[in-house]
């Protein structure tokens, strides 16, 4: 099984999100970077599939040269190869991103392309579907349960499940296929020490995705939604606050 997983470098924001003065981007001067938990789970799923059925996991990202770090993080989790489609750091929209990914994976003979359900920052909910259409592959999104049965060539298939109104619906797809997954499909492992060493030494294939085409959806500016002014009423400290806490719960009508 040759599996490709697409991941996106995003800022790691904590208690508050800050913007650059021109309102065009998240201020990352104080933050680290990561990938979406959905994508980390996609990598874990891919590693488990190749552990069971053999083959290699390739991780791929479109992003600035610094995104090499996120590829190495994924190599440490067990991916074997890494491809960086290096940009000048300008954000590309989902249409352009899907086009660049499609061109890069087209002739590599992957049996399975895994994605996160949505990018953590821009949340476009569409790159995997666009890639699937461009490659003429079947596709399903939001998957939380995946079972792959490789076969000789086109005979392989997968069964993918997800929640639908509190129950489980499942889809059967022939391989090769495109699947996007959600956190919860598995519990990703922590990178092992040998894994981290291997990831540091591994080579990353760097490709030029070409210039970014114009997007039909043009961002004008970003805004932090108006947060309610600090309004927590401190009820007290320690167990001494419990009588006040009980009164509040009673007033809110949740005590029976």
């Amino acid at each position, binding site marked *: 099984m040759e599996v490709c997983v697409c991941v996106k470098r995003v800022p790691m*924001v*904590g*208690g508050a*999100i800050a913007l650059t003065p021109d309102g065009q981007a998240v201020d990352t001067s104080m933050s680290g970077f990561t990938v*979406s*938990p959905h994508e980390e789970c996609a990598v874990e799923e891919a590693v488990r599939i190749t552990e069971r059925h053999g083959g290699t996991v390739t991780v791929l990202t479109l992003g600035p040269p610094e995104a090499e770090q996120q590829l190495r993080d994924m190599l440490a989790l067990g991916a074997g190869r890494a491809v960086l489609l290096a940009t000048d750091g300008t954000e590309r929209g*989902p*249409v352009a991103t899907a086009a660049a990914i499609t061109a890069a994976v087209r002739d590599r003979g992957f049996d399975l392309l895994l994605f996160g359900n*949505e990018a*953590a*920052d821009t*949340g*476009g*909910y*569409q790159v*995997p*579907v*666009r890639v*699937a*259409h*461009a490659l003429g592959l*079947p596709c*399903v999104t*939001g998957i939380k349960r995946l079972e792959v049965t490789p076969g000789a060539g086109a005979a392989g298939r997968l069964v993918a499940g997800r929640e*639908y109104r509190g*129950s*489980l*619906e*499942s889809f*059967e*797809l*022939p391989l090769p296929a495109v699947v996007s997954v*959600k*956190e*919860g499909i598995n*519990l990703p492992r922590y990178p092992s020490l040998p894994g981290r060493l291997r990831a540091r030494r591994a080579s990353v294939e760097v490709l030029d995705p070409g210039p970014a085409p114009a997007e*039909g*959806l043009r*961002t*004008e500016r*970003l*805004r932090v939604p108006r947060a309610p002014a*600090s309004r*927590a*009423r*401190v*009820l*007290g*400290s*320690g*167990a001494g*606050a*419990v*009588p006040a*806490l*009980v009164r509040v719960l009673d007033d*809110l*009508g*949740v*005590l029976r």
Partner: protein
Amino acid sequence: MTVLCLIETEPGGASEASLRALGMAAGLAERSGEALAAAWFGPPGAVPPGDLAARGTRLGYALAPAGPGGYAPRAWARALVHLSARLPDGAGAGPVSAVMAAATDRGSEVLAHAGAITGLPVAANCVAVTRAGPGELRLTRQRWAGSLLEDAVLRASPALLTVAADAVPPADAVPPADAVPPADAVPPADAVPPADAVPPADAVRPAGAVRGAGPSRGPGAQPEAAPAPGTAESVRVQVVEQAVEAADLAVRASESEQRRDGVSLATARVVVGGGRGVGGPEGFAVLEELASLLGGAVGVSRVVTSQGWRPHNQQVGQTGTKITPDVYLACGISGAIQHMAGCQGAKTIIAVNTDPGAPIVAKADYAVIGDLHEVLPALVAALRERAGGP
């Protein structure tokens, strides 16, 4: 011009998320003087006409892609694209300027396929949208699950949009009944052409595939005075069979197996939340006890699930569940934006935290400063005593 909204149905009618999306579609249609149409997959009666009328919708399309039934993402998208390319018997509604759907798993997936089929952009998780000009919308959409907003211009015909779950309060989104644009004011019965006059948009299927199916009038009904807009009688539902490609049906949902849950996290009235401050899996016993005393559910932060202390279906946040309880008691949780993205819908947030400077303390309505291992057992004891228990 017409705004077309995809409705997801459930046994009782339209889903709440879809009614919200329809409310936002109604707002767009009203402000730009466009008609509003709704489409769903299933029988014509799957959506009560009253629900449509209350939001100013007078045109309903009950879609049935040819082939086996059940949810098939690409087939649904293909049928929606065909419908939006030409509304069969649109009663003067005009071409479709925008296609909207709720940003649910299915809504997001279908619109992504529609975007891929047409090569058009999709704006996901919109919270506001207005017309800026012909073929151009000005919109606000969520990033980071709502922790950040993006103002953007979408230039595309039709515009493809999904509507964030928390975009519009469901009931307040209802436009006044007289807001129905004049273009749509033709008495429906007069406007029904012979059934075979309008071939399906894709023209693959032979004519005759479009049937008027107004729930309140048969095909031979006499023209009568136009029913008042905003009433169930004003809604005309047509059954439209759309041909799709065989490959579109290759991926289909198969029968779902029912899961049994206790109090569902997403709908619990009270959620007792636990984060890294709980300290380990054993620490959750008191949270469980408290949740059961309050008839609620336990919710957790991502640190808790990635440590394996609790299962992921209890995670609240951007990559977990969005909760809307009356009270969220967040214990030992710092209040990272990705966590808050999942609990912003709580009516009241109460934080229990040792650190008065934790972000959650600023974001909550009430706070108790202290060790949860001290506060929670005392709270459980107080509630038991109140209930007259041991």
